């Protein structure tokens, strides 16, 4: 056994690698001796926040994770649910915030690569990507650069591997200026019987590394970056940036799915954060076996790599397979056909120990399970932030002057339609191939994407479909994390229901500041509690997710941003529904009721430059009832269009329906009379939850009313589709063409102001 670390230096290296003194002591205790350099690297990465979830594990237990449809809950590379007829869907969301803040193009690209590998590791063919993005405001050149580059990077990767990017979300807020968020979600499709788990088994079986060579790139990349606060020092961490190779990823997808479907593998795992160490340790600990790896057998693309470098390198596009000796030839044959190296680097043992050799010399030898499972668990103190009281006390109606009259209100609506948080995202999704695989039934631009279920090219399409949406309004979460997190789930569920899907399960990506700050940690716990309560009430389990802490710059945390990715099921693809108004004469109905809830609204931000107040309330039962009415009506085939009210409120929702349908509407909203009259800004811009704008043909109005009445869902006929303008009686007069111009051109206008152009595209070769 190599003894390469003097006992007096070991604690110093441990500290440099981010191990706390007690954690180091624990390592020594496990080993019964001074660790080697390789061991220290391996432990420090496996016990980093990113890999071990040491600050979040306890809180995450609040999530409901079970349900009749759940085939695989949290703990694997991705969660899996059955969606009927023997089909299953795997999905997961993950952050790549810190790498992207340093190098947005490659950071975002490799983020997509990583989450895609999590999906096909499970045996599922990746069929969709969604991206959830947060940046500072676009008046800053740096923010434009980050935004443009991240979008280009996501596009470059997803487009190349031939997986459509079908949806996502983006917000621009000062709070993300020093720390952008790049969350990517991937969805995969498989037959239930093809579900694969990354569990190593069978002493004597071989460990085969498939894909790219191993270099020093990304040493300690994701895990180190994602486990520390982000400050000026970030610049020095630059060499850990990785360059994505989507071409190799595409070959990996094809080769691995072929290997799995031909049942040639015992197990398969992807190499993500902490590289080979994490992948191998997790597979071993799940299987209760040991492993032996010889680093000299790992194909290296750089000279003189040290064993620890090989073990923790985060070089992209690599997979680790467990293969029986008899199958090795066939496995290598498949890989060779796809142009991929497949190299035996070690084997499974029965010792339960993770042994690393450099040729004949042992450089690390530790109990495999301790890497994956013995990380300390912390329950940090949580404390309600002091700033909340004052923020929440703010009463927008009482404390501000509000626009009145058709002219001012119409102008305000236009301002909102041009707001970067509301305007059309076409500029983004037109850079993404959102149609490849020919399954995208509802394209980006509606409430949720709808994908029919069928593997491409086989004409094996089914009646069924899935709908997916990712949502989180960080501003609401800042003002009240419990409610904000509930809204994230509620909005995702509502979006999916508007498309015709019944919410089935969620994944999440919890983006927060430092968990070591009690006020941040409180927002974390509250957010989880909010999501968990909503999920439990609605029977929507959490099947996978990811935590990203230390999203801060110069001590300032981002808004709490618990992003939700929700997948729903359509029994029949024929029921897919979009938001655009369809036909003149259709009747516009509002399901749900408007309250005076301007706190945290886009209206407050755009018009009054204020982020304060209480966010809208969530009524869990009312939300569920609303979705049931909607799904029943859609199932009966009477719904022509459906669109939920979110940022910007009812007026923006109506405008979006007009723009998408290229047709106007005449709407009358009852403001009440006398003292009880609602101020027009409430009617138009309040962001009350639980509301959906639905159109039906005239004959169906009564039926929709019945459905709503029985379920106790507020129902109001508010207008008729037709004409070339949106007229909201006494409040708004807006031509559809003018609204479209503003709505569609706003984002491009913000990204390409004439005075600068610093685009990552120049850098693509």
């Amino acid at each position: 056994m190599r003894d390469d670390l003097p006992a007096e230096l070991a604690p110093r290296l441990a500290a440099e690698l981010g191990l706390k003194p007690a954690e180091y002591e624990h390592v020594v205790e496990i080993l019964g001796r001074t660790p080697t350099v390789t061991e220290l690297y391996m432990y420090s990465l496996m016990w980093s926040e990113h890999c071990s979830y040491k600050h979040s594990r306890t809180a995450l237990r609040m999530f409901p994770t079970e349900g009749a449809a759940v085939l695989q809950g949290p703990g694997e590379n991705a969660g899996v649910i059955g969606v009927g007829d023997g089909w299953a869907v795997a999905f997961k969301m993950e952050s790549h915030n810190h790498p992207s803040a340093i190098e947005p193009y490659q950071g975002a690209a490799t983020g997509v690569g990583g989450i895609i590998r999590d999906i096909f590791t499970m045996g599922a063919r990746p069929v969709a990507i969604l991206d959830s993005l947060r940046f500072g405001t676009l008046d800053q050149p740096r923010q434009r650069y980050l935004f443009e580059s991240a979008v280009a990077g996501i596009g470059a990767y997803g487009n190349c591997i031939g997986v459509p990017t079908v949806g996502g979300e983006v917000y621009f807020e000062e709070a993300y200026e020093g720390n952008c968020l790049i969350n990517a979600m991937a969805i995969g499709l498989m037959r239930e019987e093809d579900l694969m788990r990354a569990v190593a088994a069978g002493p004597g079986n071989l460990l085969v590394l498939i894909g790219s060579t191993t270099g020093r790139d990304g040493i300690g990349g994701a895990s180190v970056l994602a486990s520390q606060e982000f400050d000026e020092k970030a610049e020095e961490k630059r060499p850990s940036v990785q360059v994505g190779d989507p071409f190799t990823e595409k070959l990996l997808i094809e080769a691995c799915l072929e290997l799995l479907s031909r049942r040639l593998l015992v197990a398969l795992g992807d190499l993500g954060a902490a590289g080979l160490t994490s992948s191998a340790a997790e597979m071993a600990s799940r299987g209760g076996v040991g492993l032996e790896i010889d680093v000299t057998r790992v194909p290296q693309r750089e000279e003189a790599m040290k064993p620890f470098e090989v073990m923790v390198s985060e070089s992209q596009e690599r997979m680790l397979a467990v293969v029986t000796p008899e199958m090795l030839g066939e496995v290598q044959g498949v890989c060779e056909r796809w142009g991929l190296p497949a190299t035996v680097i070690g084997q499974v043992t029965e010792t339960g120990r993770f042994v690393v050799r450099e040729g004949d010399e042992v450089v690390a030898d530790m109990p495999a399970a301790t890497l994956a499972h013995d990380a300390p668990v912390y329950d940090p103190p949580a404390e309600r932030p002091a700033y909340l009281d004052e923020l929440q006390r703010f009463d927008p109606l009482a404390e501000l002057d509000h626009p009145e009259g058709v002219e001012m209100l119409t102008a305000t609506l236009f301002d909102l339609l041009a707001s970067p948080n509301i305007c059309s995202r076409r500029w983004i999704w037109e850079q993404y191939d959102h149609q490849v695989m020919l399954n995208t039934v509802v394209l980006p631009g509606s409430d949720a994407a709808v994908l029919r279920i069928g593997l491409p090219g086989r004409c094996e399409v089914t009646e069924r479909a899935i709908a997916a949406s990712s949502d989180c309004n960080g501003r609401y979460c800042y003002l009240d994390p419990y409610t904000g997190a509930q809204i994230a789930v509620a909005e995702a569920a509502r979006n999916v229901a508007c498309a015709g899907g019944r919410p089935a399960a969620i994944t999440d990506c919890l983006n927060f500041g430092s968990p070591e700050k009690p006020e941040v940690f409180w927002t974390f716990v509250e957010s989880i509690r909010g999501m968990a309560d909503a999920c439990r009430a609605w029977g929507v389990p959490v099947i996978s997710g990811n935590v990203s802490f230390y999203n801060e710059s110069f001590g300032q945390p981002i808004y709490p941003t618990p992003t939700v990715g929700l997948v729903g099921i359509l029994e029949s693809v024929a029921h897919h529904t979009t938001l655009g108004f369809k036909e003149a004469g259709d009747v516009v109905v509002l399901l749900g009721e408007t309250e005076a809830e301007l706190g945290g609204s886009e209206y407050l931000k755009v018009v009054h430059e204020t982020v304060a107040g209480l966010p809208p309330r969530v009524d869990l039962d009312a939300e569920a009832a609303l979705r049931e009415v909607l799904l029943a009506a859609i199932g009966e085939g009477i719904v022509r269009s459906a669109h939920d009210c979110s940022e910007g409120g009812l007026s923006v929702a109506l405008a979006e329906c007009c723009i998408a349908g290229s047709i106007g509407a005449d709407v009358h909203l009852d403001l009440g009379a006398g003292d009880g009259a609602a101020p027009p800004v409430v009617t138009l811009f309040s962001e009350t939850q639980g509301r959906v704008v639905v159109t039906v043909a005239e004959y169906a109005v009564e039926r929709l009313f019945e459905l709503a009445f029985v379920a106790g869902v507020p129902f109001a006929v508010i207008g008729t589709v037709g004409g070339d303008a949106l007229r909201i009686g006494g409040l708004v007069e807006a031509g559809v063409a003018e609204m479209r111009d503003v709505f569609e051109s706003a984002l491009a206008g913000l990204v390409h102001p004439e005075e600068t152009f610093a685009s990552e595209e120049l850098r693509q070769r």
Partner: protein
Amino acid sequence: MTGKDAMARFEVYVTYKRGIFDPPGATAERALKNLGYQGVNSVRIGKYIQIDADTDLATVTEMCDRLLANPVIEEYRIVEGEA
């Protein structure tokens, strides 16, 4: 050194830093070997930028830092000549 008023040609060579993986280079390398060029040991692909400008080396260096190269993953070399 070119004076402030004459047009000069600056040639900028931008390459990935050491240790950064270069997928296009790796692919070209494999392709060349497949075409029978067994003597090829390594291929790296970078950018070659020609700037004709009435400016000086310091300014071109600044242009590289700000726009033409990505200091996070790339390094560059500038050669000044006649336009």
